[in-house]
């Protein structure tokens, strides 16, 4: 059964892939976000999608200040607590 962390990771990876056009297979959770080539607008829009999907309130800086997908997932999990 998928854990909550896995669900968030999968969701994030799919969204990042959709916005960046980088295949999911090339987006391991420990990949540096700055190497993916997301624009500021991409990050803003993904932030909104996270907020809606997991019914949480997140700060716009969550992704901007994170180095990897894993780090974002940790912050999202914290917001859900």
């Amino acid at each position, binding site marked *: 059964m998928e854990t909550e962390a896995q669900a968030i990771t999968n969701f994030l990876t799919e969204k990042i892939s959709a916005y960046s056009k980088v295949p999911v297979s090339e987006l391991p959770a420990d990949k540096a976000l700055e190497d993916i080539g997301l624009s*500021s*607008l991409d990050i*803003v*829009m993904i*932030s*909104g999608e996270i*907020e*809606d999907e997991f019914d949480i309130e997140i700060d*716009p800086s969550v992704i901007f200040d994170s180095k990897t997908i894993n780090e974002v997932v940790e912050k999202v999990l914290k917001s859900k607590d």
Partner: protein
Amino acid sequence: MKDYYLGLSTSGHDPALALVNGSGELVFAEATERYVQQKRAWGIPPDHPDHIRSLGQFIDEKSAIQLSRTWSRSKGIPGEEAGQNAFHSTSEIEWMYRLQTRTFEDAGIHVGQYQQKETGEIYDFDHHLCHAVNACYSAPVSSGLCLVIDGEGDVGSASLYHLKDRALKRIWRSWGPGSLGTYYSWLTGLCDFDWRIGEAWKVMGLAAFGQPREEIVDLLKKSIHIQSGKPYPPKEVALSEIKKSAEQFMRLPGEDIMKAADLAASGQAVYALWLDEILTHCGKYEEENLILSGGCALNSSYNGTIKSRFGFTNVFVPAAPADDGNAAGSALLSWMKDADTSQIPMGNMSPYLGTDVNGPGSDRKLKSVENFGGFSSVSDLGERSAAQIARKLSEGKIIGVMRGRAEFGPRALGNRSILADPRSPGMKDMINKKVKGREGYRPFAPVVPEARVSDFFDQAQPSPYMSFTLPWKTDMISQVPAVVHQDGTGRLQTVNETLNPWMHALLTEFEKVSRAPVILNTSFNVMGKPIVHSVEDAMAVLVTTGLDAVLIDNVLIEK
């Protein structure tokens, strides 16, 4: 708890200050533009050193004050790509972000100097939450939906909240640059009006003279898409391409205003299509009351159509739904934070929250006007003032009225108004020519008794702050032509005896000398200037225009 809670609107435009007392009551609120007499007061601090002295009637050196701002954070400097997905250009965005950042970061420094206060920690609140709380304060209901739509909030341009037992819970907020507010600013620019000084009004007024054209509507509606009630940037085509294509329809400098009429009508029609989508989404929450806030809640043309089409029992718009009003929202949130409550206090709905014309020095000023003004008559009408003014209006006089406390928000609601008889077909042109100096096509507003609104308008509803444009009943159109717009509508103000007893009495007296209790009410200013703030401002309008007289409290000054 502190003695007072001072909210400062820190957007970089429309600065304002608002004061809430220790009981959670909004006791003072005023936009800085009134004090400095500069429209929208771009870049001017909300705690302007002299304006802040206006609070002296409430606070003294012993008062403990809590300051608050109307954003979660400063915006900083935008990236070079900022204009790529936005209606505004990169340079416009940079200019606005710089002003917001400077205003936000400096907010409160004058309070320290001029009120000799330790400012301490400043509370910061989400921009849209400030809009929502300000709106709910003056909405006399305990539950409903509160929709905030503006140019830009902390993360996007729209938020939807549930109001339950006077407490707000956010349902969603939009993220990113899809923005109906900045769309309207861009549209205003396309019509060759200046969005920076709030000329969106001109687009709304002009729309009645044009027809939506299919090719313009089809193009403009691609610029935003609505999904699950939220506005997003265009999906299939770059906004930059849409903006470029739209240039073919723009009005060029020097061209006749009517050249932009179809563009204005098309732009307003597209705005309405999007709002319809958002409100259709809101329908699923099955609430009876809708509370609208944010700058887009000033679109009275659209607002007037909501109640009859979407099944809400009541639609409320606050007196100051734009960023000036956020000063009040922020001050109320500070009070709620310290009172440890999520319940928004309920105000008394009065918009008369600004500077009192009867404040310190008023007698001396009036004496100077009498002694040195060179006017033909200065007389205290006392309790007869409503009857006397009604008679003079019926004789065709155009009179500026400055009574009591100034209105909070963009509308003159009888305390800083120019009044006239709406029965004369030539009155509109007369006021434009002699007093206001504005474009002839723009409409003037009617004021009517709240209890009689259904006698005069279809789709009748209260409109205490001129937030709704409604269709006149057909038989009224010929009776009050000066306040009927091209499309047979009027952006009405309704008054009752509780909120403005003098205006209510004036309407009663006017009915005795005319056939209907309807008076033309336009803001007491000249084109390009904010509404008058001081007696000196009022006298300047009197002597530099064709205004016949000014009533200061009950003292009538006639040429």
